């Protein structure tokens, strides 16, 4: 058989693939392998499979893991870095005192943003924002009942530090650019004002017990005083800068109003819109005044800026909105039309009261009163007549008739009270401005405040045309605003 096998094999050995066939076959196979590569898992699994020795297998596995890591080192380190520098700070942004990541928020996120604020003005803005954040955090904790004394103290301290930082920056700014310092100071001042008003309301709400945020309110009061003391007197920024700033702030306010559309109530939105319209109107009036009364116009503009900034603080802080009404922060400014209506209404009331007083006079009054009351009646009638005459003219000084009618109104009210006209009581110190139905709830205002407002927006009386309050923000949108709300 051996011979048989050998013979067959010898014969068959001549059967071989030709060199060309072999090469072609190999090439076909290699390209097949390239088009159908081994999956990673298969190649590693198969290559490390040690059938007989488990230990060797384990050793192979660990080396393989190392090797795998070596291959993907950069990808993994990229992911790791991303986690550290993006994910953690992002999560930390939502932390409050007591959270593990709060330190990251305050010492990393906020410090980085501090270094990004290059100019002193930007630094003041940022420190003010941090101050807002601290107070918001304290409110959040207080709402949840988690604000311990210790925490409150640390928040109050943080508020003080941020305010002090801002004041220092303002001081620094004063040396180089006093105008800018004024703007920065308004930024800080308005924020402290709004936050104080809000915290005061919280304090009032919990009058029975000590409010959780009293300490913070105290610090704010002190800081507010300090800011006032450090204010530059008789220094105002240049006209152009002030106008630019007003424009920037109003743009931001309009953008904010858009962004909180879903968050704010209808009433809030309406009130804010009304204030923004007031601001637009006041700005226009002030701009008109620049030619004749520059100083007064500057003051008006600063006032406008304050109002705009207060509105911004109001809109950016949801907690503030919950505790304060817009009216407490930025009282409504009446349009000329409204003011005229107001005057007419008072005039009618005076006329009504005077006729009642005259009836009383006919009934007879104590002699010591009679003379005085008669004098008041005569004066009131004169003023009413006077006002009617003025109102019938085309050009009249609204401020003049307002001051006239207000003085007489007060005197007539006092007299009516004196002679016991009970129906006039309680003394009307608030009145409803008949603008339109929807505003009636929100536009109640104090006459005294109103007078102040009127003073602030004194007109020369020559232009009685009512400015359209439906102000579009076409000019404002042209300014590039970097301070968009988050």
């Amino acid at each position: 058989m051996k011979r048989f096998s050998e013979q067959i094999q010898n014969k068959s050995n001549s059967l071989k693939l030709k060199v060309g066939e072999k090469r072609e076959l190999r090439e076909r196979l290699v390209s097949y392998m390239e088009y159908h590569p081994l999956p990673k898992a298969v190649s590693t699994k198969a290559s490390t499979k040690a059938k007989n020795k488990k230990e060797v297998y384990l050793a192979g596995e660990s080396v393989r893991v190392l090797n795998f890591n070596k291959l993907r080192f950069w990808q993994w380190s990229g992911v790791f870095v991303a986690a550290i520098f993006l994910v953690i700070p992002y999560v930390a942004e939502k932390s409050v005192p007591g959270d593990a990541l709060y330190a990251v928020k305050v010492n990393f996120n906020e410090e980085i943003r501090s270094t990004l604020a290059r100019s002193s003005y930007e630094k003041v803005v940022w420190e003010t924002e941090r101050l807002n954040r601290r107070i918001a955090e304290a409110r959040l904790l207080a709402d949840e009942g988690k604000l311990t004394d210790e925490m409150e103290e640390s928040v109050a301290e943080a508020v003080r530090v941020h305010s002090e930082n801002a004041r220092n920056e303002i001081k620094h700014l004063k040396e180089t650019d006093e105008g800018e310092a004024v703007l920065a100071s308004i930024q800080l001042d308005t924020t402290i004002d709004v936050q104080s008003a809000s915290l005061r309301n919280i304090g009032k709400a919990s009058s029975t017990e000590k409010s959780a945020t009293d300490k913070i309110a105290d610090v704010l009061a002190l800081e507010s005083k300090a800011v006032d003391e450090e204010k530059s007197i008789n220094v105002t920024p240049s006209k152009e800068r002030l106008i630019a700033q007003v424009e920037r702030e109003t743009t931001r306010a309009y953008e904010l109003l858009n962004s909180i559309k879903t968050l704010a109530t209808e009433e809030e939105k309406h009130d804010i819109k009304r204030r923004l319209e007031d601001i637009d109107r006041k700005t226009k009036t002030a701009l008109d005044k620049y030619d004749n009364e520059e100083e007064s116009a500057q003051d008006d503009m600063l006032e406008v800026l304050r109002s705009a900034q207060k509105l911004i603080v109001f809109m950016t802080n949801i907690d503030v909105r919950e505790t304060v009404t817009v009216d407490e922060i930025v009282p409504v400014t009446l349009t000329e039309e409204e003011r005229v209506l107001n005057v007419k209404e008072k005039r009618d009331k005076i006329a009504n009261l005077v006729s009642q007083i005259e009836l009383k006079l006919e009934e007879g009054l104590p002699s010591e009163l009679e003379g005085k009351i008669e004098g008041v009646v005569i004066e009131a009638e004169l003023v009413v007549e006077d006002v009617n005459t003025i109102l019938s003219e085309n050009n009249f000084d609204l401020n003049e008739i307002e001051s006239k009618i207000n003085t007489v109104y007060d005197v007539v009210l006092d007299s009516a009270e004196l002679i016991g006209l009970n129906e006039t009581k309680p003394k009307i110190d608030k009145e409803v401005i008949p603008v339109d139905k929807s505003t009636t709830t929100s536009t109640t205002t104090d006459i005294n405040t109103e007078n102040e407002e009127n003073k602030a927006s004194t007109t020369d009386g020559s232009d009685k045309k009512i400015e359209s309050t439906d102000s579009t923000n076409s000019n404002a949108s042209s300014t590039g605003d970097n301070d968009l709300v988050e």
Partner: protein
Amino acid sequence: MADQRPIEDMEESQEDRFLKAFDEYNDALFRHAFIRVSNREKAVDLVHDSFTKVWTYIRSGHEIDSYRSFLYKVLNNLIIDEYRKRKEISLDALLEADGVDEGAFSDLSEDTVEALAATIDGRKAFDLLNRLPDIYREVITLRFVDGLGPKEISDLVEESENVISVRIHRALRLLRSEIEKQDNKAKKKRGGDK
């Protein structure tokens, strides 16, 4: 031992081992295929298909312990498929035609196979292999050309060793009768010439 090689070597070895197997067995596989299908091009294709099938098997995560027997197994299956395509006569029909029943005791001994093989001229037998039905050609090729043992052949063909031995025995007998036939023909031819 393969397991003690450095990891990098092992990682490469899947492809390397596969190509090494190709280099080592391509001729033998080709030879086997060629004897079985008697067509050079077809034989080359069968070898190629065997290797791609093995590669697909590896890709699906399987491990191959012995390339040699695995490759033979795949090739053999492909050849059987090829025969099926050709619709060659069935094994039973063959056996009936031969008038033998499988598994006769006297055919089972390896000694008898050897004794029988010793009486046959291998060179002549090789030339006449294509005259055998494939099931005989298969075992003869595996046994004498490829040099596989009865056990290996039995695993490959999926028949018991006894069946394989009987089949080889019969194949040899058939071969011998074919050789005899041819010898007789040649004799007659020479006698006729004279």
